[in-house]
């Protein structure tokens, strides 16, 4: 299949376009130049015709004077015959224009015995000659030169005629009627006729040069052609007979305009029929003839045509050169494109190493080549990647299997960590079985495997029980580890017997110093003196614990106003005191309790907690903790806990023996290190 190349297409377009532009220019040039030239030709022809008219008229008017003068003389007086002949002879001799002159009388007008009387002087062979006109063979009464003045009373120039004696000389007669006064009335007496040879007309008109083949010619009153370069037309054809032979109505109309004394200019067929001509004409007032000028259009337009021909030639050659240049340029432009096309075919066949042609210019094609080379590189890389990917997929499958195993291991480890975390919280209840005066129970339920909430309790000395509930910011393993750290630090510090505020201040300092993970922990730390019921406590940003009176009254422990541990280095924590009566319970909880949520977004809240708690007034701590936890669970329903939950209850009970306090203390320390059974959730036994 052969498709036309861009070079050919553009070449054709440019050639076509420039041909159109060229045609427009040439057409415009032609019409404009033609207009100018036609105007000039009109002017020239008009001038020429007017000039000819002027020259001919001068001669005709001069010739007219002779018979007119004579007519005047004859009207006034009757000349004796001899004198008349003498005047006639001299007049003919003296007037160059006059070929012959006669005074033709009416029948028997001059001599009573002569029907014809017309003495005639004329020139022949350069000599003046004389004869009498008239007779059976020349009945001048019926001649135009006689009849027309006679019947019209006007002087006339006759239609041209060939002189019968004088060879092929075209003549016209100027004939003037003359009158004699008879009985007081002017009576027609005859005609004075001057024959004027018109050979000079031919000389004048032929001297009127119009370009090289233009010419002037004369047309008679009747449209007869009187002078013309083509002698065959002269005195044979009229403008109308030519029009009839050619069936040219336009020429006939022009002829009418000419014989009717109009001035004009028109385009018509040349009289010889060879070409189109410009015909200019003007009347000759003296004899009613017309002078016309014929200008062959081809000659008038010759310069324009030559100019146009040159323009077309230059334009044509220019267009051709332009096309050659463009085609050449496009060839060199399309060569690299063609090479690229071949390379792409090569690549399509699978040869990815096919050489891509190097292109430096033009920029667009160079960019195309670069892009093509880039594409080839990418293609190669893609193919290589594709080949490697199967191996990679295999490797990935292995990796996934490995990760699954790892995840299993991790889960296992998390489970263990959860167990450990639970195990570090004291889980043996009652913790101090020998101390009847202190009933302690606690529970911690992590939201995930490992939690950030914690509780702790320990005997600071024989009389006093220290107890802690904390809540580490965040959840999961980091929280668990931070919890373990905080709890350990707190317990270690508390066991020094420091009052709660000081203890928290110190732990805060330690935590801040060691805290690289920007974690903090809210802590409530209380010390209950079992003997006097004095509760000393400090709070580091933890929810205020509730005090459940034996009566069922629920009070909130007044706030101490400290911020969470680990948040601000150098923060100080105030301690407060409160008195706990026998049977009263201090209930400490993490925000996991109050902020426990239902599926529809309602919080458990402190009021619900207080009322839940109130029901357990006087009940053992374990019962109270489990009851509250159950209430929270019930409230949350299906909603999985979003936060860890820690609860601790300390009830002041009836003391039994004093000595048992020391034992409790010892056992408590031990118990905290005793691992309990691992489990995801852990609450104080007997669950």
């Amino acid at each position: 299949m052969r498709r036309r190349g861009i070079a050919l297409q553009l070449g054709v377009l440019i050639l076509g376009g420039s041909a159109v532009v060229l045609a427009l220019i040439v057409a415009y040039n032609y019409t404009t130049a033609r207009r100018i030239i036609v105007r000039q030709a009109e002017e020239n022809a008009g001038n020429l015709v007017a000039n000819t008219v002027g020259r001919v008229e001068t001669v005709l008017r001069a010739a007219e004077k002779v018979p007119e003068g004579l007519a005047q003389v004859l009207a006034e007086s009757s000349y004796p015959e001899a004198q008349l002949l003498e005047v006639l002879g001299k007049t003919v001799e003296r007037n160059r224009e006059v070929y012959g002159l006669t005074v033709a009388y009416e029948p028997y007008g001059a001599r009573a015995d002569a029907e014809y009387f017309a003495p005639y002087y004329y020139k022949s062979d350069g000599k003046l000659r004389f004869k009498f006109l008239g007779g059976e063979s020349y009945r001048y009464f019926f001649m135009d030169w006689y009849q027309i003045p006679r019947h019209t009373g006007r002087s006339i120039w006759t239609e041209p005629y060939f002189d019968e004696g004088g060879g092929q000389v075209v003549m016209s007669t100027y004939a003037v009627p003359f009158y004699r006064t008879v009985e007081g009335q002017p009576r027609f007496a005859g005609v004075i006729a001057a024959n004027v040879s018109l050979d000079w007309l031919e000389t004048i008109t032929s001297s009127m040069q119009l370009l090289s083949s233009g010419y002037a010619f004369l047309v008679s009153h009747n449209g007869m052609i009187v002078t013309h370069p083509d002698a065959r037309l002269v005195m044979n054809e009229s403008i109308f007979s030519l029009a009839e032979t050619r069936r040219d109505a336009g020429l006939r109309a022009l002829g009418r305009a000419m014989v009717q004394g109009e001035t004009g200019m028109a385009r018509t067929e040349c009289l010889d029929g060879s070409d189109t001509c410009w015909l200019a004409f003007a009347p000759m007032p003296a004899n009613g003839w017309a002078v016309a000028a014929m200008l062959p259009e081809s000659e008038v337009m010759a310069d324009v045509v030559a100019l146009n021909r040159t323009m077309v030639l230059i334009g044509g050659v220019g267009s051709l050169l332009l096309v050659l240049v463009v085609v050449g340029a496009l060839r060199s432009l399309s060569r690299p494109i063609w090479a690229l096309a071949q390379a792409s075919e090569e690549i399509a066949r699978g040869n990815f190493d096919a050489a891509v042609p190097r292109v430096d210019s033009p920029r667009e094609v160079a960019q195309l080549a670069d892009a093509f080379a880039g594409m080839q590189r990418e293609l190669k890389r893609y193919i290589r990647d594709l080949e490697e990917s199967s191996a990679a997929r295999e490797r990935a499958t292995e990796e996934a299997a490995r990760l699954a195993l790892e995840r299993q291991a991790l889960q296992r480890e998390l489970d263990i960590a959860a167990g450990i975390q639970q195990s570090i919280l004291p889980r043996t209840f009652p913790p101090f079985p020998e101390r009847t005066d202190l009933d302690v129970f606690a529970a911690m339920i992590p939201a995930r495997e490992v939690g950030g909430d914690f509780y702790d309790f320990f005997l600071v000395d024989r009389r006093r029980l220290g107890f802690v509930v904390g809540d580490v910011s965040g959840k999961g393993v980091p929280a668990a580890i931070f919890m373990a750290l905080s709890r350990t630090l707190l317990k270690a510090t508390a066991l020094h017997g420091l009052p709660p505020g000081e203890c928290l201040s110190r732990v805060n300092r330690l935590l801040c110093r060691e805290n690289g993970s920007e974690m903090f922990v809210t802590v409530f730390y209380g010390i209950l003196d079992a003997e006097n019921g004095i509760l000393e406590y400090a709070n580091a940003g933890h929810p205020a614990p509730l005090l459940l009176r034996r009566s069922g009254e629920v009070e909130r422990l007044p706030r101490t106003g400290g911020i969470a541990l680990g948040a601000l280095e150098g923060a100080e924590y105030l301690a407060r005191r409160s008195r706990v009566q026998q049977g009263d319970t201090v209930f400490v909880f993490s925000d996991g309790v109050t902020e426990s949520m239902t599926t529809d977004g309602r919080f458990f809240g402190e009021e619900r907690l207080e009322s839940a708690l109130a029901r357990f007034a006087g009940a053992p701590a374990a019962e109270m903790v489990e009851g509250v936890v159950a209430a929270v669970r019930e409230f949350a329903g299906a909603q999985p806990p979003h936060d860890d939950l820690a609860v601790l209850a300390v009830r002041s009970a009836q003391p039994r023996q004093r000595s048992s306090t020391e034992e409790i203390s010892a056992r408590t320390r031990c118990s905290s290190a005793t691992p309990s059974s691992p489990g995801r959730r852990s609450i104080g036994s007997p669950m």
Partner: protein
Amino acid sequence: MRSLASLSVIAALSLLASTATGEPRPRRLVFAPHWLPQAQFAGTYVALERGFYADAGLEVTILPSGPDHPPSRLLADGTADVASLWLTTALQMRDRGIPVVNVAQLLERSSLMVVAKRASGIRAPADLHGRRVGVWDGDLLVQPLAFFQRYEIDGELVPLGSTINLFLRDGVDATVAMWFNEYHTILNTGVEPGELTAFFLRDHGLDFPEDGLYCREETLARDPGLCLDFARATLAGWREAFAEPDEAVALTMRHMLEAHLGTNRAHQRWMLDRMQDLMRPGKGRAPGELAHADFERTARTLQESGWISSVPRFETFHHPPGRAP
């Protein structure tokens, strides 16, 4: 071409015949046409050119006729053996004691017309009353006078020369004209037909047959073949002229140029075409035959107008040429 070929065969045959019969030399014949050379006589020129006369054993000389040499006079004084005359002319000659005989009637219809410029206000024959009307003198005056009589037109008759310029320059209000000649000449001075009022006299009861070939009775009696052979050859010439009009016109123009007459193709072609219109013979008549009715009408009109005293016998007056050999 076929006619040319057959003509040459005829020519060859007749040459053989004349040799065989031993006829010593061709008979001389002088013909006087009606007027100056023009297509009105194209048939004669063609017959001469094609050798139709020679084939008939005739050696024909055509006289230069014209206004100064009327054919009637040439025929009467014996200068011409055959002349082209109008029927009216011939009847008048015969009435004056010059016994001429019609050997072929060429123009069956009248071509004479009266033409006026519409601008002069002339629309109908009656409008010619009191006007100056150009007429040709002599025997060409018969028809116009009959026309004026018919319409009781009392106008000034102005005898014309040989041109229509007096009419064109308004020296006369109307003029007689031949349809085949002057009428066309007027048109070809740039006058449109619509600018003219033209009456054909034939449309006014004056359809007189015009050109016919005549010889003297004595010539016919002495050598009947001479005039009739000429008439037949002339008719053959006309047939050929109408068949090849361009050649006939060219031939006519040659004759005109030889006579130093101005001429042009357009006018001669018009004339030839009109001759054909006028020459078309009526039903049941052979070319050259004069219709008895036309003869009677013309002669009676002349008699009634006082141009002739008696009407000759038709049979004596007309000797139809018969078919061309």
